[in-house]
């Protein structure tokens, strides 16, 4: 049996340990904020935090989250909004919005490890996350503005 903590709640999983975390979150916990985009860790739409680090849940088998803390977009802020979410809203980042949970989770992970990311830092951290609507320049601006807010 796999035990994990999702958004602060203890969970147990007895199914296929090879099942990617993504489908556990979406189909079983009904946490659909985490999105399916490619299934191959190519687009970042499924990004969640495992013990505070960004991972692609579509290629993270359940056996790799045994004993882990998992945070999804739904659990990012206990009350109100996370500073990154606030920055996203202020910058009007989303268009269709489908990739944005993954983008936000990736940006949260970046800012946890790097309080003042440069353009190059942002490129490196975010280039695994695809936005087909093309909101990249607003994502960059929102990350910078969130960094200022957090600092």
């Amino acid at each position, binding site marked *: 049996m796999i035990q994990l903590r999702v958004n602060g709640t203890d969970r147990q999983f007895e*199914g*296929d340990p090879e*099942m*990617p975390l993504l*489908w556990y979150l*979406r*189909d*079983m916990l*009904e*946490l*659909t*904020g*985490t*999105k*399916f*985009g*490619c*299934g*191959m860790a*190519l*687009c970042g*739409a499924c990004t969640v935090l495992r013990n505070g680090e960004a991972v692609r849940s579509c290629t993270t088998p359940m056996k790799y989250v045994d004993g882990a803390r998992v945070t*999804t*977009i*739904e659990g*990012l*802020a206990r009350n109100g*909004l996370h500073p990154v*979410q606030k920055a*996203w*809203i202020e910058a*009007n*980042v*989303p*268009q*269709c*919005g*489908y*990739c*944005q*949970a993954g983008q*936000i989770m990736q940006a949260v992970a970046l800012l946890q490890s790097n309080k003042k990311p440069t353009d190059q830092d*942002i*490129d490196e951290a*975010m*280039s*695994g*996350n*695809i*936005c*087909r*609507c*093309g*909101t*990249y*320049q*607003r*994502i*960059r601006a929102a990350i910078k503005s969130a960094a200022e807010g957090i600092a």
Partner: protein
Amino acid sequence: MSPIQNVSRRGFLKGALSGATFVLAVRYLPESASAETGPLGSGSRLETGDSGLPSDTVTGLNHTAFHPNLFVGIDADGTVYIVAHRSEMGTGIRTSLPLVLADELDADWKRVKIEQAIGDARLGSQDTDGSQSIRGFFDVMRQAGATARLMLVQAAAAQWNVSPAECETDLHTVVHRQSGKKLGYGELALAASKLPVPAKDQLKLKPQTAWRYIGKGAPSYDLTDVCTGKAGFGMDARVPGMVYASIERPPVLGGQVKSVDDKEALKVAGVSQTVPVDPFKPPHAMQQLGGVAVIADNTWAALQGRRRLKIEWDHGANAVYNSDGFKKELQEAARKPGKVARNVGDVETAFAKGGKVIEAEYYVPHLAHASMEPPAAVAEFRDGKVVAWAPTQNPQAVQDTVSKALGIPKEDVICNVTLLGGGFGRKSMPDYVAEAAILSKRVGKPVKVVWTREDDIKFDYYHAVSAMYMKAAVDAGGKPTAWLQRSAFTPITSSFVPGANYGSGGELGMGWVDIPFDIANLRVENGPATAHVRIGWLRSVANIYHAFAIQSFANELAVAAGRDPVDYLLDLIGQPRVINLKDIGYQNYGSSAEAYPIDTARIRRVVEMAAEKSRWGKQKLGKGSGMGIAVHRSFVTTVASVVHVEVTDDGKITIPRVDTVVDAGMVVNPIAVKAQFEGAAVFGTSIARTGEITATAGKIDQSNFHNYRVSRMTDAPYQTNVYLVENNAAPGGVGEPGVPPMVPALCNAVYAATGKQIRELPLSKHKLGK
């Protein structure tokens, strides 16, 4: 009868809407489709609120309330409900059209709730494509809002026993000027619901100076839900008792299953059964592709089971399709004389005169949409009826397609529209919803069909593959005296009409016959091309390859003439004038030529502004650095883009800046519009840099984002500046027109930076380094 009816008096407020005491329905269609005889009790109210999903998806809210038409409702507590009947795929239309209504109603935007309409033909077109939502419904939304406002004024005046002329509105309130009396909209709702609906000629629309929201805009209604993971997309739809399906489809269009071995698939834990899906009956149109579905109690199990299917296919006639060979055929077809779509003067005589002639050929491969949300849908077949939840651009096409697939009346197909995780034209085709409905009927449970990314890339309705042949005779100054352009592309009509192989009027009207250049001898032709894959609409459609050929060729001619590309482009456009193409049946994107003329003064202005804003010719560019310009009118909006690129010695391209100038006439929501053009710059960058779908033996070679690459943050323009030309002309399209000029502007910039002329897309196929 007035087209706007006060439905609250006719007892339509059943179920969920019974809280709203004052409801207006706006109708466009004939009286025979009257709401009075409509299918009551079969619709569903789409309360979006917290979840963004229809709440009956999430909470099982009853299906009894019915929104008969586009309408506005006001609750006794003052809440204003506005129905969005167009699909939200990221353009902001779900916000922008209700904003127009709210403005005319003089409503407080903070007290507006938006409800997404189900598919219903009485709404008029819900096909959210062609960048036409604002154009098509701006006036209608204003009238709907103004009607409600007038009735609220009349209700207040009656209560105060004064003339309505003495009353006015002020943000959710009716005010009597002389006495200073005020009543809120909520307080007036019940009384207003008892009044007759005024005729259209009684309405007084607000003067532009009194607009609160139009022109200023508002952030997306769904912004916070999207940023907190609460927004509901089709992929997120869920109903009780639902099972999951993944379908193995024929790898070649028109192929069929010869035999299936599902023994291993059925051994996967969670897999309950496999179900054959019948192939479409030609033409494929919007129908399902067929194949074998694996049904399971979660997505992962369905995918695992599908991987273990052993299927033998009969690939059928389209197995002959090979992109390499087809490209040569297409180029050959484009070189030959084709059907003449427009003819001015006499190009042959002009060419025969001798002098300098320049020729060039361009090629654009198939493209895939690759919206971030792959197609997905939930459908429940029960008691002969279907209720579907789908991220669709066209819920009425869902009704049509599902009703035909199951042999049930169209009225018995209820299509709830979720948010769309991107659409770009793919989700105008409801084949994936038909799959869910067919499977639900077979399985006897609600079914969710999930497309993988591989399914999305391999079974798309692809953007046409195209070849263009261009020829110009130029005078001593390098200006064309004759211009011939020929094209061959796999037309979208091939998806609907067997054997259709010439471009339709609509496609040829997308930047091809309407080339806005001032050339004495001009001929536009189109040759045949037979499609072997499904062809559909992709953001800006035929404008992509037409703009690429024309604007690239214009740049080549400028270079050949030793002229500055901006000056030369302005010369080609010529003096301010209106180009009249009525004699060739030009469709002008379904809009009138009077309201939306091809006005070269406006085309010149965006070019001049783009040059000015980008500081064209005023910067010293370093080695490997270059700027390119292109201008294109599409969806009755004119756009010029200047792209600045830098190309390293090893051929790596970066795009530090794009300046895009847009003349879309009057703009309702500049916040959303600017975002559309920023996004279009990235979409165009993807097409130009890496967009390429190919087929071998009828099967698509690409499968996911590693081999169908779209632009990432590092590939995209670093900064796109969008400038909106301020004018009061009728509002044009904004979702698509940013894409076409972006592609040639980028390629022209690459030429300026490297001296390498790009005649075939994508750039990734070219060696740009030293």
